[in-house]
């Protein structure tokens, strides 16, 4: 059995067919004429063997169009990612949409709302909440910083926290040998953890990232290439231009993967947004990010390869801005036809994460789920006979069997949104949404027990951590 997710029946196309073709041919032109830097000798040799023109001195590979097209065809359009519990296996592709948590650097203290370094306990709580909420199907590392944990041990520690507190699918990092421990943890717990390969835009793949990606490929785990583009800074200022660059970077890694392992499971990620031309910070809550994301999803539906988008807000606290930016982005990206949206828990770009926000985001996702279900038009739902029967006033529908049967199917009831009358709201303590979310969070943490790891697997995870510590000590990295 695979996890349900949501179905996007009719994804929205915002590009014309001609525009899709122009972005695609532009991508091929950039790949063929400018090429991409791979700071990795072996990767360059592999690409050369497959027909790329390689300048070894400049570490640059130029991709013939036929090779790119061939690799696009080889990359599967749908596939399964195995998790700890088969009910949580992900069937990625087609019109199925899953929601994922999103990483932040620091924690937002649940009680004070202040920014601070997250502890191991914060990370465990954040993961446990994600495990508990049905609206979320993937659980990635909530933080990339852990109080008292040496930097090199942050990701090994996080992966141990994730596999111990969640049975949902997760995604692993690349670079700095962090992948070694992710892969070992996955193998120890009998699951697959895809590798998220991050480019250095424009048009560059770093050595450490490529080394990690090759290890994920060897382990047989799916690959998710991503390029973080800021319009006008490391990418053209135009959305169309950024789409070409994004495609070129992601495709170059998909080509490498398909050449090494034909038919390997890959999917593509969009993490593009405008740069604030006053502060020099990326703007993740911008509506232009939504526009770009919609077009990216359309491009990858055209390629018949699954896709992912990151959604966040620029707000520093879970306030109105946080709510509207995330809700708007999630609505448009859901309708765009992505397969995974990473969003829950994050605020302030990717710099803060809060389980209080996760709880509120799951309400947004629930509402989107209802939106995606659409309108059922049948003989029964059209209710022509009923309308005739009830007729004009004093007829009404509250007392009909049709209402009793249908209203709950038609109406989604969010867990946090306040829909009481004003006096009821006052009597309940006049609580704003964040207060209600904190209460729900505490309730979830008090009641949800994730499926524990079998004893031998738990021990194996401890061994992986120990091995990681010795490894980094030996390398003089901690």
């Amino acid at each position, binding site marked *: 059995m695979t996890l349900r997710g949501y179905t996007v029946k009719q994804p929205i196309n915002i590009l014309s067919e001609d525009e899709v073709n122009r972005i695609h041919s532009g991508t091929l032109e950039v790949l063929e004429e400018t090429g991409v830097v791979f*700071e990795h000798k072996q990767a360059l040799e592999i690409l050369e063997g497959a027909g790329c023109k390689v300048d070894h001195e400049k570490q640059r590979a130029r991709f013939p169009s036929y090779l790119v097209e061939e690799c696009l065809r080889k990359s599967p359009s749908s596939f399964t990612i195995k998790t700890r519990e088969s009910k949580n296996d992900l069937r990625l592709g087609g019109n199925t949409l899953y929601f994922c948590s999103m990483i932040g*650097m*620091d924690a937002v203290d649940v009680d004070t709302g202040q920014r601070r*370094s997250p502890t191991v306990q914060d990370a465990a709580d954040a993961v446990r909440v994600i495990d508990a909420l049905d609206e979320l199907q993937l659980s990635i590392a909530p933080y*990339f*910083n852990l109080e008292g944990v*040496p*930097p*090199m041990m*942050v*990701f090994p520690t996080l992966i141990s926290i994730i596999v111990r507190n969640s049975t949902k699918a997760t995604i692993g990092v690349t*670079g*700095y040998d*962090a992948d070694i421990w992710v892969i070992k943890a996955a193998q120890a717990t009998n699951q697959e953890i895809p590798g998220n390969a991050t480019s*250095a835009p424009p048009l*560059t793949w*770093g050595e*450490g990232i490529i080394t990690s990606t090759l290890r994920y490929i060897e382990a047989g785990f799916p690959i998710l290439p991503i390029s973080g583009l*800021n319009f*006008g*800074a*490391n990418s053209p*200022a135009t959305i169309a231009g950024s789409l070409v660059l994004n495609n070129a970077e992601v495709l170059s890694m998909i080509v490498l993967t398909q050449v090494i392992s034909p038919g390997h499971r890959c999917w593509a990620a969009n993490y593009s947004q405008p*740069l604030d*031309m*006053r*502060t*020099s*910070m990326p703007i993740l809550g911008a509506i232009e990010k939504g526009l770009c994301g919609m077009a990216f999803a359309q491009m990858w539906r055209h390629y018949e390869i699954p896709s992912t988008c990151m959604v966040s807000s620029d707000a520093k606290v879970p306030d109105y801005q946080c709510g509207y930016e995330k809700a708007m982005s999630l609505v448009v990206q859901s309708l765009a036809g992505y397969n995974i949206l990473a969003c829950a828990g994050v605020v302030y770009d*990717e*710099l803060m994460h809060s389980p209080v926000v996760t709880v509120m985001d799951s309400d947004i996702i629930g509402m989107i789920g209802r939106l995606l279900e659409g309108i059922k038009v049948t003989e029964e739902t059209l209710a022509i006979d009923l309308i005739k029967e009830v007729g004009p006033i004093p007829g009404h529908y509250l007392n009909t069997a049709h209402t009793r049967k249908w209203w709950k199917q038609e109406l989604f009831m969010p867990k946090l949104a306040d829909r009481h009358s004003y006096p009821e709201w006052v009597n309940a303590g006049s609580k704003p949404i964040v207060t209600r979310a904190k209460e729900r969070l505490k309730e979830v943490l008090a009641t949800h027990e994730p499926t524990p790891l079998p004893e031998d697997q738990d021990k194996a995870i401890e061994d992986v951590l120990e091995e990681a510590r010795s490894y980094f000590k030996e390398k003089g*990295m901690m």
Partner: protein
Amino acid sequence: MEVEILENLKKAVIEYDPQGAARWASKSVEEKVDPIKALDALTEVMRQVGDGFGSGELWLPDLIGAADAMKSAMPIIEEEIKRKGAKRESAGTVVIGTVFGDLHDIGKTMVSTLLIADGFEVIDLGVNIGAEEFVEAVNKYKPDILAMSALMTMTSIQQMLVIATLQGKGIRDKVKIMVGGGAITEDFAKGIGADGYDPTAPGAVKLARKILGK
């Protein structure tokens, strides 16, 4: 003639024209314009651009565009100042780079460019710079400030390593250190013993002046 050359030099900068700026800088050397005056002209026009940015009329691409034009004129004028045995007044010298294992260039380049525009002498080491290379550059250039960028948590550790290496060689107190990048926070910067941190590129320039007491 001199007035015309200097006006054109300034014009090239505010028109974001690196070729024009280099051309008028060369022309100023040919026509024996006092290179200190040429430098003053550049400083003045960059101050105008900086004021425009401060007041909200100009934006980052304008600031970087003007700074790039200035950057292309600078070596020509500096060369002439050196040839004449004169000395350039600068706000300070900064060695800057993105740390080892990190290829993220854009944040560092923004800071580097804006520092030059603000009158600093900047030695930009590039990306993926190891601790030894930073230390070597500190020894070689004797900068007032060492600035390091790191986007990722796992590379932020490198900033710590560079500071430890400087301490090990007994030269930590010879240079002020500022750090930046996506994964850096005020607390982290304090924790590793840096002298300053700012999350934004324009803020980094203000910070550089502040930590040098200017």
